[in-house]
């Protein structure tokens, strides 16, 4: 337990020590909300769908978590290149606890970052259906963050440098975001796209956010929760296996 805590603490110290990074990570979600939220707002309203910003905000929340989490997970590659990873790999503690601490730390950072995004969305005019849903939303945010931090850690454990990073971003992370229903409702899109969205774990996270914050749901909260917990567990198993096999 102390190992999980100390590895978590390390992530916290590093995160709060670099305010520029905190601000930089807010730029993209803010840009999306401004450009798309306001840009498509008029058309969306004309189509009789209400406020696009309200619809988009939970999607941007998902995007922020996805990017921050994957990146936090893949920080492992830095630690490998700068050498600190060895220090943890040779330590007389179970590697699983090292990994759990790292991912919990990364997920906390991503959740915190997304909470700022949520606050920004509210500044721009987003209103949740009920403030009572915020604690529940935070819990789901953490689960989604944990899921993707673990995935990032899994990738990083298999790669030894950043050469594969761009590939993962372009062929996995970006599609995961764009095809998740973050930007558009999944109800009326072509069946092929709907099928892809169904295979994308982020879809369920964003759907859960919308259910809690807006009261509209595509999959239903129960399915969302089941998929999120299931996929997170699966990623945990894969990442633990890969992490415990890392050589230095």
């Amino acid at each position, binding site marked *: 337990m102390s190992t999980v805590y*100390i590895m978590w603490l390390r992530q916290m110290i590093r995160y709060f020590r670099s305010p520029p990074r905190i601000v930089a990570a807010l730029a993209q979600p803010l840009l999306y909300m401004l450009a798309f939220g306001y840009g498509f707002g008029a058309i969306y309203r004309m189509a009789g769908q209400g406020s696009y910003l309200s619809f988009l905000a939970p999607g941007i929340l998902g995007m922020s978590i996805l990017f921050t989490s994957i990146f936090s997970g893949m920080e492992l590659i830095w630690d490998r290149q*700068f*050498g600190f990873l060895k220090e943890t790999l040779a*330590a*007389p503690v179970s590697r699983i606890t090292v990994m759990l601490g790292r991912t919990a730390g990364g997920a906390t950072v991503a959740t915190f970052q997304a909470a700022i995004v949520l606050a920004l969305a509210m500044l721009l005019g987003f209103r949740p259906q009920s403030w009572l849903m915020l604690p529940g939303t935070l819990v789901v945010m953490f689960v989604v963050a944990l899921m993707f931090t673990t995935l990032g850690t899994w990738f990083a454990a298999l790669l030894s*440098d950043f050469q594969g990073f761009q590939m993962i971003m372009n062929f996995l992370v970006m599609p995961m975001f764009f095809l998740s229903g973050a930007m558009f409702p999944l109800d009326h899109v072509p069946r092929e796209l709907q099928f892809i969205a169904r295979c994308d774990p982020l879809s369920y996270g964003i759907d859960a956010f919308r259910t809690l914050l807006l009261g509209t749901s595509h999959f239903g909260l129960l399915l969302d929760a089941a998929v999120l917990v299931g996929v997170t567990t699966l990623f945990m198993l894969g990442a633990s296996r890969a992490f415990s096999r890392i*050589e230095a």
Partner: protein
Amino acid sequence: MSTETADASAMIEVADLTKKFGDFTAVDNISFSVKRGEIFAFLGPNGAGKSTTIKMLTTLLRPTSGSIRLNGLDPTKDALAVRRSFGIVFQDPSLDDQLTALENMEIHGALYKVPAKGRREKIEDLLRFVDLWDRRKTMVQKFSGGMRRRLEIARGLLHHPTVIFLDEPTLGLDPQTRNQMWAYLQQMNKDEGTTVFFSTHYMEEADRNAQRIAVIDHGKIVAMGSPAEVKASQNAATLEDAFLALTGHSIREEEGSSADRMRTVIRGMQNRRR
């Protein structure tokens, strides 16, 4: 002798150990043993296989073939139990440079299970010992190479394991710190019976501190014994002369950057294939 196979007095027992990276054989069928409480030096030119061997002994690399017993345990099977037995100072950097010196020490203390009682005092003692106490709240990022090295040494000495590995610990270290470090290690060896396994390029350091040495070259052990025995075997006056007689005069490729990076790439490919 065959009666010595399960020798309880051996801290480290290595038999027919081999490590290949692709076509490159870094460690080629070596066997040796280190007694409990012994100070043992591993000598060899750059790229001879010293670090690779140490990494296999410390569960960081899996051997291609051969067997290892450390404190009676097999690193490939009881990795965690083996890790509880040793401490290590790495050859290449292993600090978190976005943390302060003190934070690096504290994380190590927690990870390596240094008893909470007296931990702070010990950290202070060691940081004073390497002359970094006044800089304890400085981020490692701002440290010079020598300061980082001293911090790594202090950190490695924070917990007292049964066997301590030091991979070229004194590389880039000033003579003052080097002497202090050895005084500390000798004390630990005497008081707690700690086995010390170190690699070095400084023959004089090995001659002065090691009870036994092994010379490794091209992944093979070419000489082993007490410093006096190794010198005698080559009719050499100094260990340096004996070393050069054993390993030749040609300069080896730098191990630190290029070869390591190549290995990383190879390892990455192997991982991906898995």
